[in-house]
């Protein structure tokens, strides 16, 4: 008989500020040493469920609870937030703002400090936790802000492990990581699971990436209820994912396109184990016999980089000899690991920085002497976090801001703003306060506020970060429409491999300040050298083609992309 660590019985929770319960009638038992994935779209209640386990609900976010919840046999109300923190360790999603300590070591030690552990013992335990998570000892004195995304996450994990908790809770651990680092993070969590035998609960909607390592059970949530509680293989052979709006692994989508049946006994949870005996032939036929034409269009370059060199300090070259061009009406991505120079590229285009040598041409003319605001009319820049852009309380005013500062006439402003609001699907909300909108809607407001200036090109920094599959699809379809109907050229700086595959025709890969590849997504996501340099991950479609005995993997991936686009249209 396995020991129960968490038990929900007919559990319901309603936030004080909300009319409807966020969690309804939850029945869930989690056993000692289990590795559990809780998946679901945004707003499904999965974070609230996690917060009920660590105590933020109801101690920090107050509300009414009904039913029974027991953590290690105790009522959370008896334990309180501090009592729970000894049993449940939480790694929050936002790796940047959860740091408390000024140095890595101090941050790891935080829980111990609050427990009045003597300083000498503290130093030893911090060192042990750092070793467990592969943090170098010489990093202990560094500022957490100076670390890469993956290292930051390891510091957060160490800060939880230092306290010998029974349950480890990961809230969207992959949200801020690039694909390669995400893969490593899942492997690290897997190792911790094996070495400590702690119960692991992972909240995530990126199913394929989590399933990179073994997971015992998946709980799927939708609209505050548990709609599935089963092993991964059962889940993947059912149609629950589609219903809940969770993206299924790409290799399974591909098998479905080829009309193969996916059975739970075939190990569909792992691309290296999935049984393909019955599917191989069908997959080949699908690849060879269905023809899809990818339409290539010739057009004029709208943006050209010619031998650009740039450095912030003379000693360190940030961009070296960058040359590429972007065609009118193109939708392309710029990829590369953090610090590869992607953001610097966009700063040069917008005019925040000036290149040391080389030329940037916009519509064939050199923009060297154009001011930031002159360029803003031609090129719009959309930041990753909409809260960094929105400066007016009302939606209409926010969108109108760019025109107002340019001194346009009132009637003209009204006309233009209304037109843009309609394009962005925000017209019904025009008199709403910005604060009433969801994250995705806010993101649209920021795009509307750029579009109102009628730029030929917009650059988006991580446009899909923090969005679930449903919002991702909605948002990307919106960009696609903009691209097709308004002819706006769209450049996206991104780590999102699905975005690259599904919505761009070309990707420019940067590494250490150089362009190392400039090719179709299919070519890039099947090239191991480029993948490693850009901290990407090989697409599972590649592995599928190899395992199915299709030698031209690149053509197979391209075929999938073309077929998939046709299906979605």
């Amino acid at each position, binding site marked *: 008989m396995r020991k129960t660590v968490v038990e929900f019985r007919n559990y319901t929770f309603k936030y004080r500020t909300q009319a409807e319960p966020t969690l309804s009638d939850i029945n869930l038992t989690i056993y000692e040493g289990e590795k559990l994935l809780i998946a679901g779209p945004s707003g499904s209640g999965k974070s609230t469920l996690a917060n009920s386990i660590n105590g933020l609900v109801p101690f920090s976010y107050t509300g009414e609870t009904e039913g029974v919840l027991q953590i290690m046999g105790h009522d959370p109300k008896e334990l309180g*937030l501090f009592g729970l*923190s000894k049993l449940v360790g939480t790694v929050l999603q936002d790796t940047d703002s*959860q740091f408390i300590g000024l140095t890595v070591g101090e941050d790891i030690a935080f829980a111990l*400090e*609050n427990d009045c552990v003597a*300083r000498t013992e503290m130093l030893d335990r911090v060192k042990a936790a750092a070793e467990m998570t592969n943090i170098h000892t010489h990093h202990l004195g560094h500022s957490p802000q100076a670390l890469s995304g993956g290292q930051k996450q390891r510091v957060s994990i160490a800060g939880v492990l230092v306290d010998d908790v029974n349950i480890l809770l990961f809230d969207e651990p992959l949200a801020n990581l690039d694909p390669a680092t995400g893969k490593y993070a899942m492997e690290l969590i897997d190792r911790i699971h094996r070495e400590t035998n702690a119960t692991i609960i992972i909240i995530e909607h990126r199913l394929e990436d989590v399933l990179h390592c073994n997971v015992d059970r998946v709980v799927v949530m939708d609209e505050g209820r548990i709609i599935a509680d089963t092993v991964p293989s059962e889940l993947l052979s059912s149609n629950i994912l589609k219903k809940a709006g969770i993206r299924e692994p790409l290799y399974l989508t591909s098998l479905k396109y080829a009309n193969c049946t996916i059975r739970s006994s075939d190990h569909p949870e792992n691309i290296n184990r999935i049984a393909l005996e019955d599917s191989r032939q069908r997959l080949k036929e699908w690849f060879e016999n269905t023809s899809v034409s990818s339409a290539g269009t010739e057009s004029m370059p709208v943006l050209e980089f010619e031998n650009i060199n740039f450095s912030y300090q003379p000693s360190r070259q940030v961009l070296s000899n960058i040359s590429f061009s972007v065609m009118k009406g193109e939708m392309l991505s710029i990829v590369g690991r953090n610090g590869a120079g992607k953001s610097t590229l966009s700063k040069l285009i917008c005019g925040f920085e000036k290149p040391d040598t080389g030329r940037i041409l916009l519509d064939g003319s050199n923009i060297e002497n154009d001011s930031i605001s002159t360029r803003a009319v031609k090129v719009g*820049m959309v930041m990753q976090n909409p809260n960094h852009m*929105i400066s007016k309380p009302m939606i209409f005013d926010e969108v109108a801001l*760019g025109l107002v500062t340019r001194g346009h006439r009132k009637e003209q402003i009204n006309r233009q703003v209304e037109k843009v609001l309609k394009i962005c699907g925000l017209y019904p909300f025009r008199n709403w306060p910005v604060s009433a909108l969801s994250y995705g809607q806010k993101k649209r407001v920021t795009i509307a506020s750029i579009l109102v200036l009628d730029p030929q090109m917009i650059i988006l920094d991580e446009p899909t970060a923090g969005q679930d599959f449903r919002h991702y699809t909605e948002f990307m379809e919106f960009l696609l429409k903009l691209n097709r109907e308004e002819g706006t050229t769209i450049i996206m700086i991104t780590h999102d491999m699905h975005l690259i595959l599904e919505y761009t025709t070309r990707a420019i890969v940067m590494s250490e300040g150089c362009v190392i590849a400039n090719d179709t997504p299919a070519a890039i996501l099947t090239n191991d050298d480029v993948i490693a340099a850009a901290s990407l991950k090989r697409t599972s479609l590649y592995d599928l083609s190899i395992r199915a005995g299709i030698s031209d993997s690149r053509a197979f991936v391209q075929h999938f992309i073309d077929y998939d686009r046709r299906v979605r249209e």
Partner: protein
Amino acid sequence: MPRMLSYEDKGTFINSLCGATKLLFFIIWSITGMITYDTRVLAIMLFVSLIAFRISRVEYKDISFVFKLIMVFLFINLIAIFLFSPEEGVKIYAHRTELSHIAGRYYFTAEQLFYEANVALKYFTVIPIALLFILTTNPSEFASSLNKLGVSYKICYSVAITLRYIPDMQRDYTTVSQAQQARGIDMSKQAGLLKRIKNATGILIPLFFSSMEKIDTISNALELRGFGKNKKRTWYASRDFEQRDYMVIAVLLVFAVLAFYVTFSDGSRFYDPFLMV
């Protein structure tokens, strides 16, 4: 925008001092500087401040913004003294050396000029030490020192976190201001001052909201890891007093006593060079 007022360990002698030592130094130094008007003492203090600044290897560009801001206040202060009390120096030194007449009751007198020069000098003796204290003290260590002196650790920690978020806020400010500029809102020197001030307010709202978001996360992070559980806590960053700390404090105390002796030896805290002539 350059980083300003953020702690950086440059491995200097001043960095190696305990936070409590620096706090004590700052307090005693400021009190001495505030009380004395003795030009000789102030001159020595200015000299020592500048040397300390040199040792710390803090660069002018790290503090240029704050320094300029303080200069503006100093200037306003000096003008205000003159406007409201043009004969203050005459009253203090009890003699009047008129240099020239400006208008109405306003005259340039040597005594007033000398008095105001002393006020300026006071500013200059304290400013470098205050800036040094902020720039060379690890905020967490500072918090642990305050805690050692008996201040509640919750207060200490809020101070430390505030200090720690200065660089973050600066980064956000840059991002937000670039986002605004990219929409054509001119923040550069091309726009007039009034317009720039008006445009700058457009940055405050996004800055406010992104800070609120951060505060929410950080308070959750604090609670989830047991902050506030006990009446006391220990400190990873705490440091014990070492020999150099005792040395610095000893030298400081001797200096303060001497400074007060020199200042008050003639019965007044003002030094009057005019009597010598």
